[in-house]
């Protein structure tokens, strides 16, 4: 069958951290469709999403809706939204966003992954058919493996960046290396070895960047709601801001850790003194990671969430208990669509000052 004559779909997915690169790769290599890269999130994206969203919905809904609308402007005719495994409002994102977008008069295909049944993997194929009716299963599986390798490479490289970027001698070295890495992923050959080579090369490049890491840096654990924690625009770039104060920031949460390496029963066991039941989505993993960091002697915990994220609100009292038991200060942030940074900087700077003074005081005592 000659597929070249059929008109390709112009598929797009919302901005979310840097995972767009992987999605693009899967759509173009695995499904032979075109991919429309949604414009980077700006104030306009936020305003667009905000205007057409219910007022009290969580901010990731607004951001992703804004991204979809901008992707349509950029030429996309098929949109994909995630959903599925989690028990929070995310499950309804797709259904509602599809309705909002269609009510606005756009004639698009909306592929809502929440419509697939996790118990029956074959149900995913009906969604795949919406993206390409003549899909080739071997090609999808082959590309899927490459993309999985890319996911692992991306998350590991991002973690390396986060660990070191605050201590780089020359501002911007790590970001430039990371940019090159993403570019290479986009152009990579469709096999695992190509991905491994890119990963290795970037690792070497990053290790060659001069850094000055103090003997006993302030160590902060970053936790919170899935989207806000991973998306720099939503989190007001808080991860970078903390790094620039000279804090070492550890973030466990990323897509590979939560979807591939995560074992909920293990985490549940670890936190059983604090929590009896799952409170949904990422709460168990967040509480588990917070407890782990508290035990490892971290200097502080920072918790981010979108305003009104119910599961994370449930996690907050538990986090407070952990923090008072281990004497670790915690800072909570709740974001919606505000754009002033001043209040965030005030609280962050005070947090840093407090930890620094506490640490210095502790050292004096030990002398």
């Amino acid at each position, binding site marked *: 069958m000659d597929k070249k004559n059929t008109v390709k779909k112009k598929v797009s997915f919302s901005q979310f951290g840097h995972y767009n690169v992987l999605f693009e790769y899967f759509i173009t290599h695995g499904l032979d469709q075109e991919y429309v890269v949604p*414009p980077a999130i*700006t*104030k*306009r*994206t936020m305003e667009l999403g905000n205007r057409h969203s219910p007022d009290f919905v969580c901010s990731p809904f607004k951001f992703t809706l804004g991204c979809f609308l901008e992707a349509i402007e950029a030429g996309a005719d098929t949109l994909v939204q995630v959903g599925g495994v989690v028990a929070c409002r995310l499950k309804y994102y797709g259904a509602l966003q599809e309705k909002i977008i269609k009510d606005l008069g756009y004639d698009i295909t909306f592929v809502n992954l929440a419509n697939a049944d996790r118990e029956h993997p074959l149900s995913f194929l009906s969604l795949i058919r919406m993206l390409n009716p003549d899909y080739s299963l071997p090609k999808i599986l082959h590309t899927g493996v490459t993309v999985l390798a890319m996911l692992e490479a991306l998350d590991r490289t991002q973690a390396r960046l986060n660990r070191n970027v605050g201590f780089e001698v020359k501002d911007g070295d790590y970001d430039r290396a990371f940019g090159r890495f993403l570019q290479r992923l986009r152009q990579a050959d469709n096999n695992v070895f190509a991905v491994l080579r890119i990963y290795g090369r970037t690792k070497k490049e990053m290790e060659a960047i001069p850094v000055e890491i103090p003997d006993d840096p302030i160590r902060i654990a970053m936790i919170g709601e899935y989207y806000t924690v991973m998306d720099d625009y939503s989190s007001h770039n808080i991860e970078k801001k903390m790094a620039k104060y000279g804090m070492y920031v550890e973030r466990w949460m990323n897509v590979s850790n939560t979807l591939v390496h995560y074992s909920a029963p293990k985490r549940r066991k670890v936190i059983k003194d604090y929590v009896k039941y799952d409170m949904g989505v990422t709460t168990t993993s967040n509480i588990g990671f917070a407890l782990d960091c508290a035990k490892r002697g971290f200097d502080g915990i920072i918790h981010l969430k979108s*305003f009104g994220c119910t599961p994370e609100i449930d996690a907050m*009292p538990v986090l*407070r208990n952990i923090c*008072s038991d281990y*004497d670790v*200060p915690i800072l909570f942030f*709740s974001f919606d669509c505000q754009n002033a940074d*001043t209040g965030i*900087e*005030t*609280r962050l*700077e*005070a947090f840093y*000052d*407090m930890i620094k*003074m*506490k640490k210095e*005081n502790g050292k004096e005592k030990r002398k």
Partner: protein
Amino acid sequence: MKNAFMGIDVGSISTKGTIIDENDRILCGEYLYTKGDPLEAVKKLLRLLEARFDAENYRIVAIGTTGSARKLIGAVLNAAVIKNEITAHAVGTTNIHPDVRTIFEIGGQDSKIIILRNGVVTDYAMNTLCAAGTGAFISNQAARLDIRVEDFGGIALRSTDPTPIAARCTVFAESDLVHKLQIGCSKEDIAAGLCRAIVLNYLNNVAKGKKIEPPVVFQGGVSKNIGVVKAFENETGYPVIVDENGHLAGAWGAAILARRAGIIRPFDFRITDVELKITGKSCGRCANNCEVICVYREGALVDSWGNRCERGSVTA
């Protein structure tokens, strides 16, 4: 000639300034309303301070700024230290009360709690989304009751049976208040109810999960309201200390931090005659439209900020 240090705290409602000597003692302090124009307020403040400053024996060698306009004023005055108000308040207060363990602070638009142990901040929290239960709220309700803000606390103290009022949200509180007035509650009881509502709002939201231990120091504009002070004492069960100089604690802390920084940047009061201009303009180079703030002294660019990327940077 001895060294002196100046601290300036520019808040949403009021602007405070102190000058201290090398032993952190206050040489002079002043206080006035910001009235929405921080730059003009600071100029006025400097004139007031200059009139009381002993320029023959002291010279100001460094400035610290704090409060919501700290960056702007810091740029204009070439400050040695620009510090957030939480740290500044903690430093200023421990200087007055070295043994303080809890600081309540309710200002014009924000409220915070600072927990200290052995003179070191160990925990703090700030109000999050809105200004419910802050000075702005009291001013509004006082106006509704036709009471002067200054008299509000005294009137509240005369009540024997405070009216229950919801303080979670200003809109809810207003409708509660209107309703209570209509069923014939007295102004005294309503004023006392509002004071209690502010305290409960503070303890339930800002101070949630924090361990309040004495000595407790209460600061910020609202600490001048005796009704709120009494309500705090009733609810916490601890005596609440309010200082005469409590409103200057932030400025005092900023001055101390400037002294500790050891950076010498001599200051001249003649700056009040210098032409200062601040512009805020949209960058326009991408859809972010960052608002870039530029500060000019006699036409020359002193500082600029607000841009998210290099494209929006403004240089002289």
